[in-house]
C-alpha cells in the first residue's frame, strides 16, 4: 500500500515525543496529535491568556522560548512559575470549566505548539499515566501554596511569615539536566577525573540510566585519601547507595529540608521518584544558592563552572535581578558598572572557552576576541546588541583563508550562543562571524589605517564602534599591538580628528528653542525621547575624540576618559568632571528605564519623567553642549551647527 507522507507533522511529533506527557504515547497517537497542532509565534512580553479570560480550546507546549505564569498575591501580580522548552501549560481547560486563574506571558520570543483540547481528551480518558501527569502539573501550577486556601490557613493559625517577594522557597527546583555519571565498573580515578573536569562535587553511578549510587568529594577524602581503597578500585566499592531520589516538582524548601535531614548536598530526581527509574536531573545545595543568586561571587563561580548555554542564560537572568536590586538601592553607578561588566565579561569568556573546546581542533594560531562598542567601553548594563570581532596572528598567504575559515566557524558558534543568552545579533552585522571583521593583525592594521586615511560617513560610523575595542578572550599581545598601531596613526592626524569632531557634533539636539525636550516625530517610537541618539552618543563621541586627541590609551569607558582628561587638564577640570558625571547619570537613567520596560531603555516617554528627572537630564545636556563648544574651538569647527 502506498502512503501519504506528512513531513511537517513528523517534525512536530519528533519534538513532542521527548517530553511528558507525550513520551507516554505511541507513534501513531503522536502523529495523530501532531497533525492537529497549530504553531504560534509570539514576541516577548506578549500575553497568552489573562486571569479571568474564557478558556481557550487548546493547551500549550513551548517549542522555543520561555513563558511566565503570574498570579495576584496580596493584590500584586507576581510570577509564580517559569516554563521553557518542552514544558506544557495552560492545562486548565482540560480539568476545569471556570475561566483562567493565572495569567501567562512570554518572557522572550516564543514559539508555541497549540494542542486542541477536543483532540486530546481521549488520551486523558484512556491513558492513566497521561491523566496522572497532567493532573499533577495542573495542580502544581494552581493549587500550590499560593492558593487562597493556603493563605487563609496561614492567617487562621496566626502564624506570621515573612514571604520574600517571589516566595522563593516555594518555587520548584530547577534541575540540572546535564548529569555527570559513571558506570559501576569505572575506576575511582576515572570518576574523580570526570568530577574535576566538570567542576562538580559529586558523581552519580548509573546502570541503564537508573541511579544506583553516588560518590561525593567527601567519599574520596574518607575512603581513598586515607588509603583504604586504591584509585584503581571500582567506584562501586566506595559509592553510597541506595540513592535518595525524588520526583520532579519538589520545591526548594522541600529540597533544603531533605538535604539537612539526610546530611546530603545533592538530590537526584528520577522519573517516578524511585532509584528504579531513569535519572531526569540533579539538584545541589550550590544550585539553590545560584537560584537565589543575589550574590555576585556566587554568580561568578556559577558562570565559571557552567557547562551549558541554557544555564548561562539563567545566570544572566540572575545578573539582571542583581542589577535591578542595585539600581533600586541607588548604589553608585561606577560600582554597579564594574560588577555587571565583570559578570558579563565572564559570561562571554565562558561561552568562548566552551566553543573553543567544541571545535574539532585547537586554534591554528593565536587569536583574541574583541568586544566593541558599549561592551568594549564597559557601558553595557542591559541586554543590548552584541558587537564583536576577532583578530588573529599573521600567517602566510597560503594559509590565511584556511585560518580565517576556522575562526569564522568558531565565531559563528559564539555569536549564536551569545544570542541565546540574550545578546541580540548586531543589526549592522558587526560581529566576529562576519568575514569583514574576522581579520589577521596585519589586515586589522590596514583596515584601521584605511578608515583614518579616507574618512567618509561610513568610516566615521565604523570608527565610533571599532575604536572602543577591548579584549575579552585570548592573546593580549595582539590587542596591545593593535592599540599601538591605532595610537600611531591617529597621533597628530588632525584631518581625521576634525572629521571625527564634526561627526560628534552632528547628533540632533536634545532640547528645542524653548528648552523643551525634542521627541521623535514618527515611527515606532513617536513622541518618545531618544536618549541614546540625543544624549548618550554625543557625550560618548566627545569622550572618544578627546581621548584620541590627548593620546589617552587603553581607557575606553566614557566616564573614565573624562576623569582622566580632568586630571591632565586641571584648567577644564570642572567641565570634564561634569561630563563624566553626565555619562554615568545617563547610563543609569537608561538602565532604570530599560529595566522598568524590559527593553533597551533607549526611548523614553516624557510623561513618565518626574520634574526632578527632567532637571537632572537638562543638567547632563548642559555639560554636553559645553564640551561640544570646546570641541568646536579646539578643532576649528565653527562652521558646524
Amino acid at each position, binding site marked *: *500500500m*502506498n*502512503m*501519504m*507522507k*506528512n*513531513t*511537517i*507533522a513528523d*517534525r*512536530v511529533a*519528533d519534538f513532542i515525543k521527548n517530553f511528558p506527557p507525550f513520551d507516554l504515547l505511541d507513534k501513531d497517537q503522536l502523529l495523530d496529535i*501532531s*497533525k*492537529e*497542532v*497549530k*504553531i*504560534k*509565534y509570539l*514576541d516577548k512580553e506578549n500575553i497568552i491568556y489573562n486571569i479571568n479570560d474564557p478558556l481557550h480550546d487548546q493547551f500549550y507546549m513551548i517549542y*522555543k522560548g520561555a513563558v511566565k505564569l503570574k498570579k495576584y498575591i496580596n493584590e500584586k501580580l507576581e510570577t509564580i512559575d517559569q516554563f521553557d522548552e518542552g514544558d506544557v501549560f495552560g492545562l486548565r481547560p482540560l480539568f476545569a470549566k471556570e475561566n483562567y486563574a493565572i495569567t501567562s506571558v512570554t518572557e522572550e*520570543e516564543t*514559539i508555541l505548539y*497549540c494542542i486542541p483540547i477536543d483532540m486530546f481528551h481521549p488520551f486523558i480518558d484512556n491513558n492513566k499515566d497521561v491523566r496522572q501527569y497532567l493532573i499533577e502539573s495542573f495542580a502544581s501550577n494552581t493549587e500550590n501554596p499560593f492558593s487562597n486556601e493556603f493563605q487563609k490557613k496561614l492567617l487562621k493559625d496566626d502564624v506570621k511569615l515573612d514571604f520574600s517577594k517571589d516566595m522563593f522557597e516555594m518555587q520548584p527546583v530547577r534541575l540540572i539536566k546535564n548529569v555527570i555519571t559513571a558506570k559501576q565498573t569505572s575506576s575511582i580515578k576515572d570518576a574523580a577525573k570526570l568530577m574535576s573536569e566538570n567542576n562538580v562535587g559529586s558523581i552519580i553511578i548509573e546502570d541503564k540510566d537508573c541511579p544506583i549510587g553516588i560518590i561525593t568529594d567527601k567519599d574520596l577524602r574518607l575512603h581513598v585519601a586515607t588509603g583504604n581503597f586504591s584509585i584503581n578500585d571500582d567506584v562501586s566499592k566506595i559509592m553510597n547507595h541506595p540513592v535518595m531520589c525524588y520526583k520532579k516538582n519538589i520545591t526548594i524548601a522541600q529540597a533544603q529540608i531533605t538535604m539537612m535531614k539526610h546530611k546530603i548536598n545533592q538530590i537526584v530526581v528520577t522519573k517516578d521518584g524511585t532509584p528504579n527509574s531513569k535519572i531526569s536531573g540533579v539538584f545541589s545545595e550550590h544550585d539553590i544558592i545560584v537560584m537565589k543568586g543575589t550574590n555576585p561571587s556566587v554568580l561568578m563561580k556559577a558562570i565559571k563552572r557552567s557547562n551549558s548555554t541554557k544555564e548561562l542564560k539563567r545566570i544572566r537572568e540572575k545578573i539582571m535581578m542583581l542589577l535591578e536590586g542595585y539600581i533600586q538601592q541607588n548604589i553608585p553607578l561606577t560600582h554597579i558598572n564594574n560588577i555587571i561588566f565583570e559578570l558579563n565579561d565572564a559570561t562571554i569568556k565562558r561561552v568562548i572557552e566552551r566553543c573553543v573546546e567544541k571545535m574539532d581542533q585547537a586554534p591554528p594560531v593565536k587569536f583574541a576576541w574583541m568586544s566593541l562598542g558599549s561592551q568594549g567601553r564597559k557601558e553595557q548594563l542591559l541586554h543590548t546588541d552584541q558587537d564583536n570581532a576577532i583578530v588573529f596572528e599573521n600567517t602566510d598567504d597560503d594559509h590565511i583563508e584556511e585560518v580565517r575559515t576556522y575562526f569564522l566557524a568558531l565565531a*559563528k558558534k559564539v555569536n*549564536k550562543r551569545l*544570542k*541565546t543568552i540574550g545578546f541580540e*545579533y548586531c*543589526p*549592522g*552585522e*558587526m560581529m566576529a562571524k562576519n568575514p569583514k571583521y574576522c581579520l589577521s593583525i596585519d589586515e586589522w592594521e590596514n583596515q584601521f589605517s584605511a578608515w583614518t586615511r579616507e574618512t567618509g*560617513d*561610513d568610516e566615521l*560610523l*565604523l570608527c565610533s564602534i571599532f575604536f572602543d575595542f577591548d579584549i575579552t578572550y585570548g592573546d593580549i599581545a595582539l590587542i596591545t599591538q593593535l592599540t599601538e598601531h591605532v595610537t600611531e596613526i591617529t597621533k597628530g592626524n588632525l584631518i581625521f580628528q576634525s572629521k571625527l569632531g564634526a561627526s560628534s557634533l552632528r547628533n540632533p539636539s536634545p532640547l528645542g528653542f524653548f528648552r523643551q525636550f525634542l521627541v521623535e516625530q514618527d*515611527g*515606532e517610537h513617536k513622541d518618545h525621547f531618544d536618549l541614546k541618539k540625543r544624549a548618550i552618543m554625543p557625550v560618548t563621541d566627545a569622550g572618544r575624540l578627546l581621548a584620541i586627541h590627548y593620546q589617552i590609551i587603553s581607557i575606553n569607558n566614557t566616564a573614565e576618559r573624562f576623569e582622566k582628561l580632568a586630571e591632565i587638564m586641571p584648567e577644564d577640570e570642572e567641565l570634564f568632571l561634569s561630563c563624566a558625571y553626565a555619562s554615568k547619570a545617563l547610563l543609569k537613567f537608561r538602565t532604570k528605564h530599560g529595566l522598568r520596560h524590559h527593553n533597551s531603555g533607549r526611548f523614553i516617554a516624557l510623561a513618565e519623567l518626574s520634574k526632578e528627572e527632567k532637571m537632572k537630564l537638562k543638567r547632563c545636556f548642559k555639560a554636553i553642549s559645553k564640551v561640544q563648544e570646546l570641541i568646536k574651538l579646539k578643532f576649528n569647527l565653527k562652521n558646524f551647527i
Partner: protein
Amino acid sequence: MKWPFNKKEKAYPEYWKRYNSHFLEPKETDINTSTYVVLDTETTGFNYEKDRMLSIGAVKIINGYIDISTAFEFYIKQDYFNESTVEIHGLIKNERLETVSEEEAVILFLDYIKDSVLVAHHAFFDITMINTALKRLELPELKNKVLDTMFIYKATRLKSNLIDPNKKYTLDELAENYDIDLSDRHTASGDALITAIAFIKSMQFLIKTKAYTLKDLLNCK
C-alpha cells in the same frame, strides 16, 4: 482587436473555473487575518522549460497560526528518468509514497490555495515552475498575490552602506538568524515549514517596528 467572446474561457476545465471563482470579488486584505500558503517546490533542475517539479510542500497560516492540519505534500510521477531524480525516486520507492500526475498535483494545489496569499523563499522560481506546469495544461497563470521571504527579510535588515544592499539571503541564513531548526532541509515540506516560521518572524517585526500592511509586504523588492 480581440474577439470579444473568448472561446478558450469556455474550454477551461472545471477545476480551473472553481479556482478562478475565488477571484471574482475583491476581498479585504488585512495583514494579520489573511490566509497565507507558504510553499516550496523541489524540481529536477533550474531550467523552467526542461525541468519538472518533483514535489510540492506547503502549509497554511490562518489567523497567525501555522496550522499543521493544512499541511500539503505531494510527489509527482516523473515520465523521464534523469540523474537528479534518482534520490526522490529512491525516497518514493523506499517509503512507498503515493505519487500523482502533474495534472492531478495542479488540481489538488489549486483547490488548496484558493485565493490565499502565496509565500515562498525566492518565490519567483517556484511560481514560475508552477506557471510553466499550468501552461503545459493550457491554463493561464496563477492569480494569487505572491510574497517573497527573501525581500521581506531584507526589509527587516538595517539600511546601511556597510551592508551590501544587493545581498541575496539564503533560507539557511534566515534560519540561522532566527534560530530555526534545519532538519528536513531540502524536502519541499521541510523548507516550507522553515520558510513559514521565518515569514511570521519577519512579518511581526515589520508590523511592530514599521507598522507594515499587506500592501507594504507586497511592495518589498
